[in-house]
């Protein structure tokens, strides 16, 4: 179910594949002269009537007599397309310049757009990191959808494989990844990065063939989130060739988790058995009492 929802979002998103900003207008307003702005998202006044292809990124509560403006086809997507192009090009400069404005400026120059555009990206460097996260998730989904590589694997092997595929995507940037993590951990960005991670974990569980929606859902995601993050951190200091130690570490953690799952399962059975035993003896006792 989640998968289809995600896919639907992805497909309808056009060029920007994970639209985080639907048909809403962001009005940043801050009181006094403080530099801390509180972005408020205001629902488009004409939101109900306009689809996501509204004519301008800025929608006014158009006063009477306002002439219809730009008849261009979806400039918002146009902006986001340009933003995606700049950010994609910027990724090539990250290794040299870090997750920084400089990298984005270099990227903009590369695609022939004025680097001024970088100033209009929300939360600057975070835009670059978030773009990369989205991009990786998309590539992971593509691999899941296309590849037969998961077919004959057990769930634990699938999890191992998927986490590894995903982490390998950020291997080229490993020297700059601590910087990316610190950007993601910034209070302004933490909600988005948390959401992105949740989506990633969800995607991996679904690809591993998990379709349950009980209490385990939370346990599973928490456990996998833990595995993913610790492996990610382990990777930062791993100097073994091709991150061999990291993959070994990952394999062990996944195995631990599945052992834990087994242990929990066994504990559950035991509890059930004890419960049943107690129940029957109680039943027997009550029965005996009533017989008298």
């Amino acid at each position, binding site marked *: 179910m989640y998968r289809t929802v995600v896919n639907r979002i992805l497909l309808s998103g056009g060029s920007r594949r994970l639209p985080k900003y639907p048909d809403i207008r*962001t*009005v*940043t*307003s*801050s*009181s*006094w*002269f403080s*530099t801390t*702005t509180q972005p408020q998202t205001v629902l488009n006044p004409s939101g109900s009537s306009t689809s996501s292809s509204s004519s*301008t*990124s*800025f929608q*006014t*509560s*158009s*006063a009477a007599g*306002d002439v219809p*403006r*730009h008849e261009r086809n979806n*400039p*918002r997507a*146009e*902006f986001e397309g*340009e933003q995606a192009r*700049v950010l994609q090009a910027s990724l090539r400069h990250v290794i040299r310049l870090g997750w920084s*404005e*400089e990298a984005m*400026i270099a990227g*903009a120059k590369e695609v*022939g*757009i*004025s*680097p*001024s*555009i*970088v*100033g*209009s990206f929300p939360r*600057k460097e975070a835009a670059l990191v978030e773009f990369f996260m989205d991009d990786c998730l998309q590539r992971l989904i593509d691999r899941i959808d296309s590849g037969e590589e998961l077919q004959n694997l057990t769930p634990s092997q699938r999890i191992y494989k998927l986490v590894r595929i995903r982490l390998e995507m950020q291997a080229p940037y490993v020297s700059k990844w601590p910087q990316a993590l610190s950007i993601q951990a910034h209070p302004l960005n933490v909600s988005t990065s948390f959401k992105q991670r949740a989506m990633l974990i969800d995607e991996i569980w679904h690809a591993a063939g998990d379709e349950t929606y009980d209490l385990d859902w939370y346990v599973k995601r928490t456990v996998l989130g833990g595995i993913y993050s610790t492996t990610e951190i382990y990777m930062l200091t791993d100097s073994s060739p091709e991150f061999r130690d990291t993959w070994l570490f990952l394999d062990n953690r996944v195995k631990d988790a599945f052992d834990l799952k087994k242990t929990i399962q066994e504990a559950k059975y035991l509890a059930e058995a004890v419960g049943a035993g107690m129940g029957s003896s109680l039943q027997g006792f009550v029965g005996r009492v009533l017989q008298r």
Partner: protein
Amino acid sequence: MALRLLTRNLRNRISPNLCSASLLHSHATSFGFKEVREEEKSQMVGKVFSNVASNYDLMNDFMSAGLHRLWKDRLVSKLSPFPGMKHLDVAGGTGDVAFRILESINSIRRRALQDPINDDLQEETRIYVCDINQNMLNVGKNRALERGLGEDKSLVWVQGDAEALSFEDNSMDGYTIAFGIRNVTHIEKVLTEAYRVLKRGGRFLCLELSHVEIPVFKELYDLYSFSVIPRLGEVVAGDRESYQYLVESIRRFPPQEKFASMIADAGFQKVEYENLVGGVVAIHSGLKI
């Protein structure tokens, strides 16, 4: 809107069927609350600024209690300048915004000193300061000398009309206009010109005194503007009329939403605005794609 018009009418007895929007398109235009012919407005505005040029920054400090410095800092931080930038600052005669942009670019260079590419780029940085009023430009040039920037090739002083810029199409990375657009005769023309000179990806940023809508604060602000500022102008700059014009022209300027839609009409995308001090000033921004 209607309420604001009503209060305005009571205060000044202007005809009720005129609103700021219709004025912008009419042949009669506004000079403060006065109706003047289009040809006259630029002359009258010119006179105002020739009068106030020498005391301009002193008065800005007095009127805004120094806040205008923070507003301009905020404007420049929103612009996020970069080495090698071609920037046009319109109506920036005294160089306030231009100096800040230059400073910001220089600090980037210091940070990235080890990067030789940026050093070459620094040579290419150009900040054009364009103002219609030579008196204001002279003030700016003198201040540049005082700051030791007189020899800096990055600063170029140009006298010119914001409605008919002398720069080529697609030649600028950034365009700022701080406390200027309120004084022009045709806002639309200025916006069209801004769009014309900007490159793809170039940004338009406008810092302007705007409209306060917070109830009690609005009353205080009105009281301050109409009773204190003209008197302050009289005492400090010896010129009441010019400052009377200032406060009136602020009321005449389109409100934030309206102005934002005008920017969008000029072709800009991702049009946003940010109110500072509850709307006393607003920073509008747009992007050319």
